[in-house]
């Protein structure tokens, strides 16, 4: 029983950074922009958050600064991809490569100093209920925040005018432009939002999940978040499902190593990556599902003069 609880709570915690980053990218892609720089923005967020927490700032300040740092990194991408109309694939890759280098450089003074992690909040009374308590009411606040953001993003995308504008721009920037919307501005805002969310995901890794700074500590989580957006078919609630699936694989893999199951640790460590490929294959075979909510203009540059 304790083990089951440990696996379920571990899954929810492991899913949290993925939910942040994937929800951000989902909004970005819904506006028709493909930013492959998530991994870089997460690393920049992680190193920033760690640096501020290390300097003694409270975690909430560290997380907010990490969001700002992520958004700033996204701005670099925006200038290239939206203003200068560079190839979005290349611009995103550039951001990931740059972010990897920059975060390594900024973090080299931190060493492997551990940090006072964000602590879980035990909700009084509820958290002491057996089984249900530890299962539902003993997480750090960011786990709840990630889950709460899913309906919020859904509402914003599907029930507000802003969401409609974002989706129309992702579908047909020409039409949106003709009606009078500022396509480039909306895409900038979506891109900045995506950067802030990736920064927050990185901050969660550095402040709560690990909690320490190691170069390249995201270990592909930014790319898995990108896979989650495809898995979700560009719909927020399915992001959560996917994140739990990947969080679960990661946790099971760690527990399997703890059990001393007679499989080389490297093979277990490869599981999340193999699982990502497997899930992508299953999802992508169904073109109808994939294309249903696919933002038609994804990755294509737009210029108002065209």
């Amino acid at each position, binding site marked *: 029983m304790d083990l089951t609880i440990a696996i379920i709570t571990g899954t929810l915690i492991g899913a949290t950074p993925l939910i942040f980053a994937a929800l951000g990218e989902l909004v970005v892609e819904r506006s028709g922009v493909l930013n492959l720089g998530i991994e870089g923005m997460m690393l920049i967020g992680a190193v920033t958050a760690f640096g501020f927490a290390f300097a003694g700032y409270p975690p909430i300040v560290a997380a907010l600064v990490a969001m700002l740092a992520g958004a700033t990194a996204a701005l670099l991408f925006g200038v290239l991809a939206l203003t200068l109309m560079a190839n979005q694939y290349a611009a995103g890759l550039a951001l990931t490569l740059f972010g990897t280098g920059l975060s*390594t450089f900024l973090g080299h003074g931190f060493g492997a100093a551990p940090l006072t992690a964000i602590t879980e909040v035990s909700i009084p009374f509820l958290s002491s209920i057996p089984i249900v308590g530890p299962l539902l009411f003993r997480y750090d606040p960011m786990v709840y925040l990630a889950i709460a953001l899913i309906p919020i993003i859904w509402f914003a995308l599907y029930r507000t005018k802003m969401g409609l504008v974002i989706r129309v721009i992702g579908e047909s920037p020409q039409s949106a432009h003709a009606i009078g919307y500022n396509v480039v501005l909306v895409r900038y805002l979506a891109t900045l939002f995506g950067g802030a969310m990736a920064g927050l995901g990185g901050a969660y890794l550095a402040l709560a999940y690990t909690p320490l700074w190691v*170069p390249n500590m995201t270990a592909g989580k930014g*790319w898995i978040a990108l896979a989650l957006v495809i898995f979700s078919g560009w719909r927020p609630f399915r992001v959560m499902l996917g994140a739990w699936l990947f969080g679960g694989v990661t946790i099971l893999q760690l527990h399997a190593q703890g059990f001393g199951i007679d499989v080389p640790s490297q093979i277990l460590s490869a599981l999340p990556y193999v699982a990502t*490929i497997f899930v992508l294959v299953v999802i992508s075979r169904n073109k109808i599902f994939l294309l249903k909510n696919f933002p038609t203009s994804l990755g294509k540059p737009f210029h108002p003069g065209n």
Partner: protein
Amino acid sequence: MRSFTLEQRLNPSLAIRALSPIAATLVTILAGCAMFYVLGYEPLGTLKVFFIDPLTSVYGISEVLVKACPLVLIGLGLAIGFRANVWNIGAEGQLTMGAICAGGFALAIGEKDFGFTLLIMVILGALGGMAWASIPAFLKVRFNTNEILVTLMLNYVAILLLSYLVHGPWRDPFGFNFPQTALFHPSAMFSPVFPGFRVTGSIFIVIGATIIAWAIVTRSFLGFQMAIAGKAPRAGQFAGYRENKAIWLGLLIGGGAAGLAGMAEAAGPLGQLLPTISPGYGYTAIIVAFLGRLHPIGVVFGGLLVSLIANGGESAQMHLGMHSSLAQIFQGMLLFFVLAADFLVFYKLKLVTR
């Protein structure tokens, strides 16, 4: 009223296409100076350590070539794929598989000298990279699976596989428990071109690959078809071109080149298999490909420049105590500015009076 409008250049001249990466390099150097200044280093002196010092000795030049070889080789393969819009970012994994396949053979034959061990290793290295790249190609063609994500995920898998092998079954029994294989027999290694320097015979493979890539891109119908397909997929179909063919070719060429580079690392400077074969060559080569404007000759210059920066980073670490990741930041900035400079290649700012 006066205002600026953008006009697309349909056929940018060769001069402006060649000048834009040079301009981007100069801007990167300026930005680098600003960065050095902010970090409290004297800009010009630091710049000299980064860009001039590695070239002041024959050994330094040889070291630039050592790092440029894998970068150019991988960059050539990636550029051909990128031209056809095949986004292979799995070169790091393909390189690792090339090293594993060729290294496995070298370990298997041990002390026996066939006479053409190295040739077999070259073939196995290329095949290993191609086999690894054929996974995303197959999944993309058969199941429509995004090749960016599959190639990237396979990087982690390949590196974990290498780690398993050198920690486990392939570990040198006389290696004091270090995670490394036995040293290869000399017949399974490239010999240095000049005694005392680390540049090996694999440089001739890189030169040969450059010529082949140049011929494919500029002189073959295949290159023409791939370029058309990358620019205008529908027009490419009229030119008798199938998207699936581009995916297979783009990935196999990229994978084969990366596998060769991995084999050349294992059989060259390293002489054995270690947990890490490459310091990220597979990723850095993406910068090289774009810096070379996806043209084989450009890739050669791009590889030399990026290698110079990497060596400059090492000399700055040694002489000024700078952290080696500065070189990575430099390379990232370079790619940013190269992409930004593209804007001036493809668009003209025009001042119009209405």
